[in-house]
């Protein structure tokens, strides 16, 4: 059973994405801010990470950077999930080192497929 770390400060979004993942057979662990997200990413060895960009302490790009800097975080798949629906954002995210990008609002019926595709590509 694949383990997903969700780093998301908004309670509703956390409940939504974790429910969908759990309903589809994933194990989830949760972090509500950037710093605890980084420590869980490095300490609990998730198979992939769903990372919000707007976070209360350090932003998603900084979280990504800190995880990638550590030896344990070099290979884990990290998917950005955000409502930053701006031109070029997707490109910017991928360039920054995310394995994939999912735009909010997520489509519950498609999100699992989107995640699987990203994970398959980053293998």
């Amino acid at each position, binding site marked *: 059973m694949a383990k997903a770390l969700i780093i998301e400060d*908004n309670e*509703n*979004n956390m409940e*939504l994405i974790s*429910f*969908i993942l759990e*309903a*589809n057979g994933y194990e989830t662990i949760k972090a509500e801010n950037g710093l605890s997200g980084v420590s869980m990413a490095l300490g609990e060895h998730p198979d992939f990470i769903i990372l919000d960009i707007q976070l209360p302490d350090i932003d998603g790009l900084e979280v990504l950077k800190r995880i990638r800097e550590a030896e344990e975080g070099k290979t884990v798949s990290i998917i950005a999930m955000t*409502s930053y*629906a701006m*031109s*070029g954002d*997707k*490109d910017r995210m991928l360039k920054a080192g995310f394995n994939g990008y999912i735009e*909010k*609002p*997520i*489509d*519950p*019926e498609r999100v699992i497929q989107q995640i699987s595709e990203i994970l398959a590509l980053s293998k």
Partner: protein
Amino acid sequence: MKNTFHPILQTAVKIVLVAVAYFLSAKVVAPLSLVESGSVFAIWPPAGVALAAFFWFGYRAWPGIFIGALALNITLTPFLPSIQIAITNTLGPLLGFWLLQRYANKNIFDSTKTMALFFLSIIAASMVTSFGGVFSLWVHALVSKTVVVMVWTGWFLGDLIGFLFVTPLLVAVRREPDFMLRLFSVEGISMLAVLAATCLTVFGPFAFFNLVDYPVVYFLLPPLIWGALRFGSTVAVFSLFIVVVASISGTITGYGPFLRDDPNQSLLLLQSLNGMFAITILVMISIFRERELAQGQLKEYKDHLEELVNSRTGDLLDANKKLQELDHLKNLFLASISHELRTPLNAIIGFSGVLKSEMAGPLNTKQKEQLDRINKAGGHLLEIVAEVLDVSQIESGNNTVFVEMFSLAELISEAVKEIEMVAASKGLSIKVEMERDVMIQSDRRRLYQCLLNYLSNAVKFTEKSGMMIVRVEESAEQIQISVIDNGIGIANEDQSKLFEPFERLESHLKVKAGGTGLGLYLTRKIIEDLLDGSVWVQSAVGEGSTFGLTIPKIITDKMKKEK
């Protein structure tokens, strides 16, 4: 500055001053009498002094004139006619002054109109003094019937010349007491020298030929005009005065072109020519002054205008700055509010979607249908929020364009794929007509957004079992994408409004459409403002519509910087 004199004392001094001036000005020309009667002169300066006295001191000057005139005549005629003559000699200038005050009410030199009024006023004044004076003499049998007309003529002309030469000089000197300073220059002295030399030549004893036969007096015009042109009104009337003094002195002493056997003839000639010179120069001065004043006003107006423009420009800049600040605030507000709106909307859409998909358990048909409504309404609201944000960002001009190289065919198939499900549910088929793939350099996301907008509109407004075509045409530097449907079409008069904000067309469309009213406007703004292209529409009611967009294949960075 405080005047130490008591006002009454001041007035008294002024009256005495006027009386003395009047008296002395008469005594100055006493040796110049041309007519044996002794009371008529080639020029009668007291008349000019009297009128000037009113200009200097106002109506209060009249007792001075009266006293001066009385003192003068009492030595020449018996008492009663002297009184009468003094009265009419005061009334004449008074009438002249009153006329000028009533109708001109400003400096006589300042316009041709006031100068003309000056001439009319002194004619009226001379009429009063000459008729009054001659009448008094005649009533008291001091003038014989045979010479009365000649005496009147001499009196009238003498007074008129007096007014014509003396009043302008005194009025001008009052306004510009230091006018002589103007002449302290090479040009000023040259002008005076030429004038003096001409006067001496024409009226002096140095003539080389018989001057009477030739119109040599006209030699005086050039220096007079010189003075008027270059040194202003005061110098001009001063020069005129020099000419009149020289002409009278010369004629009296037996020189100059006016010498005739009959002294009356000499007098008449002299007065005619002097009068003509005076009128010519005075009119000329008034024309110069009029022009000078107009130019001054124009310049003042121009300077003021510049000032006005500057201050208005400043106001506008301030206002503009405020507007920019407000606009910035508006955009901040819109950006933050749309973020705040989006977060709860994501939850609404997400959870209704989860429930609808029965991940959390089975639902009955009604529940499913109602959740679908919540989900769709949320989606619609999110679309509105996104479009409002987009529009506000594009309108404020702070929207960055993300230019990248991409495959147009891929972009189109992605968009078609996105809309295909909805289209299929209405029984619509979508066909792409594209000869070859084109790599273009533009903002992929923006172009996708516009294409999707056209496609979803086409789906919305096409009835069941319709047919849609996405056609791509390519030219050397541009590509044109048209989305063609065989839907309900749009009336001609409505087509121009389509791309305006919140322009929802009338009729049943409204009900069915359910868009934001911003979609096509946003598309136009994106294509025109961000992608340097253009949008267009062709449609016929009942036959369908074609929405098109034309954009350059390559947006250069340079082009974007210019925006």
